């Protein structure tokens, strides 16, 4: 096993590089990202547009291959998996919450929530029954049979969260989950994500522009121009046991390379 996999079953990136295009048109989206994300904490990926947030989350979710570097997610050496294995990895281990909700418009809320179970081989009826329980858990018991178009933005995002969590994934990735909804609903959504996603065996990563949700994160990683520019722990939620960043470093910018060097 690669040494990197000896680390805890969270997310570990070493010198992660991602380039798009070639020659003079080449774009360096990630220029050597080094981070460790532990289970049991809610990590926010923030930064200006074009800094590489979406690219990084895409790579962590096994939907995109890095150009080079080492990457371990939940103990899996993702870059060396086949396309088929990556799909299976995502189906079993990853829950997605998208900015635009990405619900299937022809399916009811319950059916949408049931989709990950169906992808994992479950039959429709038991999957929908379980989906209705999940919808009840996110406060939408009475909207199980509504189509997405009949739901408000906040309700659709709650359906999306239920869908992301129904198969109990060990990695939750959220792409701007509050950007398409109002502030109050956004707060509700973040509380829901914290409640459902932050578990000891679960890694949760949220990409966001929305500074109002920073308070919900345990840790905030700032990307700039394809590298980690800042890595800090939110004071209210700081923990010491698993922290990659030492408590003394809370709120102080930390060099990712220094973090890695310190651990090894």
């Amino acid at each position, binding site marked *: 096993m690669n040494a990197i996999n000896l680390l805890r079953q969270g997310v570990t990136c070493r010198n992660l590089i991602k380039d798009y295009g070639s020659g003079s048109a080449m774009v360096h989206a990630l220029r050597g990202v080094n981070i460790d994300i532990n289970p049991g904490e809610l990590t926010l990926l923030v930064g200006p547009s074009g800094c590489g947030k*979406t690219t990084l*989350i*895409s790579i962590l*979710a096994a*939907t*995109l291959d890095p150009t080079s570097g080492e990457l371990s997610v939940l103990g899996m050496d993702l870059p060396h998996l086949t*396309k*088929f294995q990556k*799909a*299976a*990895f*995502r*189906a*079993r281990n*990853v829950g*997605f919450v*998208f*900015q*635009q909700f*990405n619900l*299937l*418009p*022809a*399916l009811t809320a319950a*059916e949408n929530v049931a*989709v*990950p179970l*169906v*992808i*994992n081989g479950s039959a*429709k009826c038991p999957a929908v029954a379980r989906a209705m329980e999940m919808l009840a858990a996110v406060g939408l018991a009475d909207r199980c049979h509504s189509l997405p178009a009949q739901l408000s933005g906040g309700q659709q995002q709650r359906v999306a969260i239920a869908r992301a969590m129904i198969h109990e994934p060990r990695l939750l990735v959220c*792409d701007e989950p509050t950007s398409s909804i109002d502030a109050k609903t956004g707060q509700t959504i973040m509380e829901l994500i914290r409640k459902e996603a932050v578990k000891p065996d679960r890694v949760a990563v949220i990409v966001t522009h929305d500074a109002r949700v920073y308070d919900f994160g345990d840790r905030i990683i700032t990307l700039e121009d394809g590298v980690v520019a800042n890595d800090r722990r939110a004071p209210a939620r700081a923990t010491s046991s698993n922290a990659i960043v030492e408590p003394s470093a809370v709120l102080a910018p930390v060099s990712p390379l220094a973090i890695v060097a310190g651990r090894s």
Partner: protein
Amino acid sequence: MTWIALRMLTGDRSKYYAIIFGVTFACFLITEQSAIFCGVMQRTTSQIQDTHGADIWVMNPNARYIDDLKAISDDAVFRVRGVTGVSWALNLYRGQGQAQLSNGNYQGLILLGIDDATLVGAPTQMLVGKIGDLQRPDAILVDEAGYRQMWPGEPLRTGKVIEMNDRRAVVVGVYRASQTFMTQPVIYTRFSQATLFIPPARRMMPFVLVKCAPGNSTVEVARRIEADIGLKAQTRDEFSWMTMSYYLQHTGIPVNFGTTVILAFLVGCAVAGQTFYLFTVENLKQFGTLKAMGMNDQRVVAMILIQALVVAAIGYGFGVGLATLYGMFAQRAMPLLAFFLPWQVLAITAVAVLFISLLSSLLSIRRVLVLEPAAVFQG
């Protein structure tokens, strides 16, 4: 997974109906044009089909189709009767005649002379008069379309008189015949009478009609006749196919209709392919979401194929149904319309529609397969 594919397909009703319409339209065009082609081809054999009672047609070895009139010797009928397995054999005259109508006009026609004694081969659907009346002097039977051609606007009745070869011929009956390939009236009379209605020739008989004895294979008896007396002997089906083959090979009908059918196929491909492709492209975000959530390419392909097959099945049903209704109603309104829908046309249309649907889905599949799951994060 199937239910997700079907719900995606039917979720947007307007797109769903557009795809169904495209496949239905293609299917209708292919079926309708093919059926008209078959109808035209079938008309080349209408007189073979309308000559009831005979199993085998015996003719000159060089005859190539029913209108290729090459006389055989008058004693051929006696020699055929001597072949094992033949129950009876009778003369059938068929030739081109010319009639002078009471208004002075001339009309070309097809003249059929059947056995004087038995009247075997006579038409069966009489509209006016009786077949037995053919035994009367100068008697002829005229087909309905021919009657209306010679006496337009007049009610069907007996007693009409024409002249053929300076001889008087009296209409004693009007029958319903299959539409012919040519537009000429088809006149039935007795064999002996027929020889008087056309200018004399040394040999006049082109066909001998044969009925097989019970327990004998029609094909075997035909081959035996050919072997024993050296004439061409064709079963009813063989003679029909031989006639159709001649028209297929020596006329522009297949090329002209083939062009139309191919055009219908291409239009169908374009309409169905474009609508299905656009449907998939507009659903790329949904497929991308499914791929991101872990659905592998094989299952995505299966979903698209299921959608294509469902569209093909529904479009086929509607298309064939519409073509059938068109055939039924159009033939009532336009009796001259040739429309024949054998099972082979239905099978060919099914294959064509399946091909159209699979082709259009393949274009869509390619688009979905190259879609990176990460694209779903980029809106």
